[in-house]
Structure formats: structure tokens, C-alpha cells
């Protein structure tokens, strides 16, 4: 293969520009580690595609950009990717606001975007674009699964500590909706501003409410600090804490003590490799590519996001937008966590939700931080209905 | 005591002092006179080490000063009363006076020395805890002089001390300089009130355009009609 003349390579390249996938993620800033995992796994998906011969020999390429977790920057970067880099697809984002910003740009320009971060808004008709797919879970699904597990088990009196933004509100809404089935009693919802570093002024009040369950609906650093301080205030002694979304990176950053006993949800955990061959294959490939490292939840999303798009390209035999959209809509895939597919009306990936608990002993390796309590199987009934989302059925 | 030779100083590119040489002996009162912009202030600033760029030689008590920063010069016994008074905003009169002592060896006798100076300037005594910048122009001038005097320097440089001071007090002030001299303090005085200044000074230098154009004893200058015509009496 090394004998190919340079001349030919040039020709080939000229004929077949690579399939470009724009990948805006927040490489800098507080979620840099998660973003890095997204990139790693995205690269893996691209490498696998290329190793398998690409699209009739045409290779794919990931064009990574730092969106700095800022929607404005993300929009600019997406414009760069679309207008200058002329990418065929965009996959990425780590926050709701950023994905909506990217979505707004790609929607207007008819570019396929596969979003790999959580949001309920992206499913709704107002923001929906036929070019946009949502590989990640959404708050409704996550909190639903966690709620169904927890309300049955820990009690009916529930209090909430919620980050005061769309994502937090969406999770509470999800919990309350499930709560109706269980007749839970809502003792109160205390909302804290995003980026709060001290919860000491909120915790005594929550404690005074004497709930069975405290739902902490926030994310990242807010969640780490809230859990840490809740531990300090001794809240866990009498109250079960649940969080809709527990991320691998947060758990590692905050340490086992803070997360001890907290129950929450996630879309992916490497430990389900015993259950799904696809997970095993993904884990192994990832290990192989990154010296034994295991993929995290966000990494898996990066993988899934890129891989499904490339799969659809292969299926469609083309990179033409409309054909790829059709192929994605038709796709039934099991790439890393069991069977999944994109629902027709809102392009939400219908998938399983894992209910997990942080663990602090019997760890098999440094990535072994959660224990899977239960798995909620993929089912459209756990999603908000297409009508509720405002889609014409 | 103070010897300056071939002193040159610049503001940016403009050459403000050109080869100024002068000397002050211990216990003398020496006067610098000259028109506005002649370079009197610049000379004092160079001696105190406040000019960015200065060349030549300034020796005080035998020590070369030109490379030394201002605070070291103070420690050697030099004091300076700038022409714009430079009363520190936000401090009271007392604090301004204390400031005159913080770096001095006499610091332990602070209260005593403040009383002493207050006796000399009764007006300041009345105003001890007033914010200093709200005082009248003349009061500020007194404070500036008091602040420089309080640490008992060996040589005090005064830049137009009588500016804005009422006549009775000007007389008193010059009387004060005379008594300072009697106590062994040397005085280098820049003054527009030339007649008065020459009345207490031994010698004087006349500056013009950044250079010394004349030097003589005070009597000789007072007798000199041209000097009188030019620099004296309003």
C-alpha cells in the first residue's frame, strides 16, 4: 500500500473530499473532561468507519471545534463549520442552550445535526427541524425512569432542589408527571441560581421539610457541591437523595463520599457490557484505542452521535442530506447500549435508561463508580407524546 | 553640605536643567530665584530624586545621591516641601503629620513632636482632625511645611512656601526659617517673594532657562538694581 505514488493520492483526494463531520464541544471550561471524552469516542466511530472502507472508499473526518459552552460561540463555530469547512454533518454540544443554538443555525441552512446533550426543548415543535436528531436522552425520560424507580421504593414525600433554568425545570416537570402515578406529595421546590457554590443557606430549609426523598435536579459542579454539602449537613441520614442525571465525570470529581448512596439515571455505563454485546464491543474498541481507558456516558454519546450518522450515510450510499435523513429515520441500531431508533415525529432516540447508584467499595477499576440498579427498556410510552410536543401526528 | 555640580535634567525630550552647579553649606539659608519656568522646582526635584532623568552629581554630606531613591535621601536628612503642597487626600491633618514621622528615627516621640509642631502652627492645632484637603489654601501650605519639619531634617528644601500665605504669617514664617537655621537646620529656599527671602538668606542663585545665571551674597543682590528691578517688589 505504501507503493502508491503521491500523485495518485492527490488525485484521489481531489476526487473524494472526505466526509466532514463538524464536532463543536466545550473543550475548555468546566466540562472540558466530558468534552474530551466525546471527542475521543467520536474519533473512534470515525476510525471504525474508515477502517471498514468508508463510503465506497471515501473516508470520514471529524472537525472538532471548541464551543466554550457558550451558545454564541457555538453558533459562530457552527457557521464556520458550515460556511468555511463545508461540513456534511454536525454532531455535538454538551448543554441545552448550546445545542439549541447549533440547531438554529443548522436548521436554517438545512444541515443535519445530531445532538448529544440533554434537552426537552429540542423535541418540541417550535425548535424541531427535520434535519435535527437527538441521540441523547432528554430530561423527561431520565427523570421518568429515576422517578418510577425511586417513588416506588423510598417513599411518597418529595422535596426538590432545582437549578433555576430550563433543564432543571424540565426534570422537575418529569418527576412530577411520574409522581402523579405514585401519588407523591410535593413538599416544595427550592430553586437555586445556576452556578451556586454554597447551598448552606438552602439545606436547613429542605431539612425542615422532612421529605422521604430529595430530588436534586441540577448538573455538573452545582450537583457536586450540592451533594457534598448535603452530606456535610447530614441530610443523607434521614433522606434519600435522588438526582435525575448522574454523570461519570461529576462522580469522579466530587469523590465517593459526596455521592454515597445517591440514586440517579444515566444513558450509558460501561458496566452493562455483561448485558450487551454492542457495549462490550464498544468498550473493547475504546480500550484498544485509548490504552485501556473506559468510555464514559458522554463519551458514549459522542460515539453514538457520530456512528449513527455514518451508518446512515452508508445505508443511503450518499451524503446527500435528504437521503441521509431518510436513512436515519429508518435506522434501527444497537451500537453501544442495546437497541435504539429515532422516533419519527421528533427524531428523539428511543432508548433504555439506566438507574444507577454511586458506589464506594468493591470497585473493579477506577471507572467502576456506579452500580446499575435497574434498566428501563426503550419504549415510546416513556416519551412525551408527539401531540404533547406540538407535532402534527 | 550639599553640593551640586553640572546637574542636567530632562522632561521627556525637553532639557529642563543645563549644567546647574550650586552648593549649600551647613547652617546656611540659600535662596533660588528666577522667573516662572526657570527651573527652580526642577532643581529641587532633582535633589530629592523625583526627576526621571537626571545627570551630573549631587552630593549631600559627602554622599553621592543621584542614584539613590527619594526615601534614602530622606533618611540622610533631606526634606522637601513641594510647590503644590501635596497634602494627602483622605487623611486628616494629624495623619498627614504622622506621615511625616513614619520613616523617621523620632517616630517613638510622635505625640510629643506633633504637640511641638502644633505650638508653632496654632491654626493646625485647631484643625487636627479635619480632613486636610478641605482646609484653606494657606492652612494647607502650613501643613505641608509642618509635615516636612516635624522629623527635624538637616536640610529642608522649600518650594515657594509663602505662596498663598497671609502677610502676618509670612513674616512669622520667615522668622521661623531664621530660627530653624539657628537650631542648625540648613534651608534651601525657592521664593518669589524675593525681598523677604533675601532678607533672611546668606546667598542666592539666580536661575534662568534652566541654568544658573548669577550668584552672589544676599546683600549684593539686594543692592543690585537690575536684580531688584527684575525680581523684587510688587
Amino acid at each position, binding site marked *: 500500500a505504501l507503493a502508491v505514488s503521491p500523485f495518485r493520492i492527490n488525485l484521489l483526494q481531489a476526487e473524494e473530499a472526505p466526509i466532514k463531520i463538524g464536532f463543536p464541544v466545550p473543550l475548555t471550561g468546566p466540562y472540558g473532561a466530558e468534552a474530551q471524552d466525546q471527542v475521543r469516542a467520536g474519533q473512534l466511530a470515525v476510525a471504525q468507519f474508515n477502517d471498514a472502507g468508508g463510503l465506497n472508499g471515501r473516508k470520514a473526518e471529524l472537525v472538532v471545534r471548541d464551543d466554550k459552552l457558550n451558545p454564541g460561540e457555538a453558533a459562530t463555530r457552527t457557521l464556520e463549520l458550515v460556511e468555511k469547512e463545508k461540513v456534511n454533518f454536525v454532531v455535538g454540544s454538551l448543554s441545552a442552550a448550546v445545542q439549541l443554538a447549533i440547531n438554529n443555525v443548522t436548521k436554517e441552512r438545512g444541515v443535519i445535526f445530531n445532538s448529544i446533550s440533554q434537552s426537552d426543548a429540542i423535541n418540541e415543535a417550535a425548535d424541531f427541524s427535520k434535519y435535527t436528531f437527538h441521540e441523547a436522552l432528554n430530561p423527561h425520560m431520565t427523570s421518568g425512569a429515576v422517578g418510577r424507580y425511586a417513588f416506588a421504593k423510598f417513599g411518597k414525600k418529595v422535596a426538590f432542589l432545582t437549578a433555576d433554568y430550563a433543564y432543571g425545570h424540565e426534570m422537575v416537570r418529569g418527576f412530577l408527571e411520574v409522581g402523579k402515578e405514585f401519588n407523591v406529595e410535593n413538599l416544595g421546590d427550592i430553586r437555586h441560581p445556576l452556578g451556586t457554590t454554597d447551598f448552606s443557606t438552602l*439545606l436547613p430549609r429542605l431539612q425542615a421539610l422532612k421529605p422521604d426523598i430529595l430530588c436534586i435536579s441540577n448538573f455538573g459542579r452545582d450537583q457536586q457541591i450540592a451533594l457534598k454539602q448535603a452530606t456535610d449537613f447530614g441530610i443523607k441520614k434521614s433522606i434519600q437523595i435522588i438526582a435525575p442525571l448522574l454523570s461519570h465525570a461529576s462522580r469522579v470529581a466530587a469523590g465517593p463520599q*459526596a455521592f454515597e448512596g445517591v440514586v440517579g439515571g444515566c444513558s450509558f455505563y460501561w458496566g452493562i457490557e455483561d448485558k450487551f454485546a454492542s457495549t462490550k464491543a464498544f468498550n473493547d474498541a475504546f480500550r484498544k484505542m485509548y490504552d485501556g481507558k473506559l468510555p464514559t456516558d458522554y463519551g458514549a454519546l459522542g460515539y453514538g452521535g457520530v456512528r449513527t450518522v455514518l451508518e446512515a450515510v452508508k445505508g443511503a450510499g450518499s451524503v446527500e442530506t435528504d437521503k441521509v435523513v431518510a436513512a436515519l429515520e429508518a435506522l434501527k441500531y444497537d451500537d453501544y447500549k442495546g437497541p435504539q431508533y429515532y422516533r419519527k415525529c421528533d427524531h428523539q432516540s428511543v432508548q433504555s435508561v439506566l438507574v444507577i447508584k454511586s458506589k464506594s467499595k468493591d470497585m473493579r477499576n477506577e471507572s467502576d463508580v456506579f452500580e446499575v440498579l435497574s434498566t428501563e427498556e426503550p419504549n415510546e410510552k416513556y416519551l412525551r407524546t408527539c401531540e404533547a410536543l406540538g407535532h402534527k401526528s | 553640605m550639599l553640593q551640586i555640580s553640572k546637574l542636567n535634567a530632562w522632561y521627556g525630550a525637553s532639557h529642563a536643567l543645563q549644567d546647574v552647579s550650586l552648593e549649600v553649606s551647613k547652617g546656611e539659608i540659600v535662596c533660588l530665584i528666577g522667573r516662572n519656568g526657570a527651573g527652580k522646582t526642577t532643581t529641587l526635584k532633582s535633589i530629592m530624586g523625583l526627576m526621571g532623568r537626571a545627570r551630573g552629581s549631587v552630593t549631600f554630606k559627602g554622599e553621592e545621591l543621584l542614584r539613590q531613591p527619594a526615601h534614602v535621601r530622606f533618611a540622610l536628612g533631606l526634606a522637601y516641601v513641594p510647590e503644590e503642597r501635596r497634602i494627602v487626600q483622605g487623611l486628616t491633618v494629624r495623619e498627614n503629620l504622622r506621615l511625616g514621622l*513614619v520613616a523617621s528615627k523620632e517616630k517613638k516621640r510622635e505625640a510629643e513632636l506633633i504637640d511641638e509642631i502644633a505650638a508653632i502652627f496654632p491654626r493646625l492645632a485647631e484643625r487636627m482632625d479635619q480632613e486636610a484637603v478641605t482646609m484653606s489654601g494657606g492652612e494647607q501650605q502650613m501643613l505641608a511645611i509642618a509635615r516636612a519639619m516635624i522629623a527635624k531634617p538637616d536640610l529642608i528644601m522649600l518650594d515657594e512656601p509663602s505662596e498663598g500665605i497671609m502677610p502676618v504669617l509670612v513674616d512669622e514664617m520667615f522668622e521661623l526659617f531664621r530660627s530653624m537655621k539657628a537650631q542648625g537646620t540648613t534651608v534651601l529656599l525657592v521664593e518669589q517673594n524675593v525681598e523677604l527671602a533675601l532678607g533672611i538668606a546668606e546667598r542666592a542663585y539666580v536661575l534662568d532657562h534652566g541654568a544658573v545665571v548669577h550668584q552672589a551674597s544676599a546683600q549684593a543682590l539686594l543692592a543690585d538694581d537690575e536684580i531688584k528691578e527684575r525680581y523684587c517688589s510688587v
Partner: protein
Amino acid sequence: MAGLSFDLIALQLFAGLALGAIYVLFAIGLSLIFGMLTVVNFAHGAFYMVGAYVGLYLISIGGNFWICLVAVPIAIGLFGLAVERVLIRPLYGRGIDYPLLLTFGLSYVMVECVRIAFGKTGYPFDTPEVLQGAVDIGVGYFPLYRLFVIGATAVVLLALWLFLEKTSFGLIIRAGARDPQIVRVLGVDVSKVWLIVFGIGTAIAGFAGLLAAPLQGVIPEMGGTILAEAFVVTVVGGMGSIGGAVLAGLLVGVVVSMTSLFAPEMAKVSIFALMAIVLIVRPQGFFGRAGLMS
């Protein structure tokens, strides 16, 4: 409002004071540096953060929290001295803008260096064993460590107050900020004073970072949030006034905790609303002297 009792309000007040303590600690360093050097130290948050990381590092190589309490301020203080000497000193006399820009750049550099050295994700920072748990303070249980923070802050304040009041340092500091030249003429080596003040200010910042670490864990960005809030504290108290910073820090803590009780989502904006009101009514803050920096 359900569940509002006297005990709860009292506990809430206490939580506010504890929260205020960290603000105070952070803000006095800021205020000191500003009041003296007229340097708006945008890197103060970075010093705070580095303080926490140095503590983390010392513990990882076998030190303990008590050693850190001494070693961290010294280390950060020395670092501060170096920064003043090399970077800040050339800027004196150029107004407040340039030091501001420089320290802004410096905070970028420091944060990024920490990211390179320690990674982007944060680390947990365990509360020292003897200070774990909560104690009954009469109105309810309160974490012991937070009480410790209040105490440590009080000690630092007392030491600083003694230092400024019992020496002429305080006077020199105030005068030097307005007219360094005249202070020099009066025999004080102002550059040395500035150097020391900057060192003290940063040492306190590092100390605050260390104290905050067991409360929130450490991440490279931890200095950013507190910086904005601490600016509020310094300004409300009056720039350059230590007493003002203390009063305002505690006030801000209490205001935050009280808003948390009634409208928690407004906790953050309440800080800024407070500042706007204070400054509109009293433009120089509680103890600030009019005229400084105008």
C-alpha cells in the same frame, strides 16, 4: 410559607454568617490590594484557587490540613511577592486599567496552568477528620467545619487589624494609594510596602481558597464566581476599607441567606441589587472615602 420557624431563621442567619466569612476573607485581600496599590486584582480568584490546589497537593504528598493552614498562605504569599515584583511593579502610576488587564491575563494563565498540571476535572477535598460532622448550636445542627471557618476568619482579621493599627502600616497604605511620591519624599520605600501588601493580600486569598476547598471541592474555575461576588463586597464596604469589607461581607452573606429563605432563585441577583442600592444612595460604599479613585 410552610416550615418557617424561629429556629430555621436563626439557623439561616448563621449559615449566612458562615458564608459571609469566606466572602470577608476573600474580599479583605482584594480590598487591601486595591486600597493600597489601586490594583483591581482580577487574578485574586486565581490565587484563591491555587491556594486550594496547593493544599490538595500538600495533602497528597503526605501533609495534613493543619500543615496546609500554615504552608498554603506562605506559599501563595511568596508567589504573590514574585508576581508583584515582576509583573505589577512596572505598571504603577498608569491608572487602574493596566493592572486590571494584566491580572486578567494572569488569571487566564494561572487557571490554565493548573488545568495542565492537575487536569480539567475537579477533585474532592475531604474535610479534616476532627472537623467533620455537625454540632448542635442551640437552634439546630450546624456543620462543625463551617464554625471553624468563622473562627479562622476572625483570627485572620484580628491579626490583620493589629498589624495595620499597631504599626504605621495602615497610614502609609492609605497615603501611598493617593500620592506615592509624597510618601517617598517622606522617607518611605513605597515599593517595598506595595510588595508586602500584595504578598499579604494574596496570602489571605490562598488561605481563603484552602478554607473553601472542603466546602466545595476544588476545580480550576473555582475562583471565578467568588471574584464577582467579592467585588461586590469590597465595593459595598468601601474600597480599601478593611472594616467595610468585613461588615459588607457578613451583610452579603446574610442577605443571601435571607433571600434564600424567601426567594431562593433570587439569591444571586440579590447581591447585585444590594450593591446597586447601596452605591446609588452612598456612592462611596459604607466606609469608603469619597474621592478615592475618582
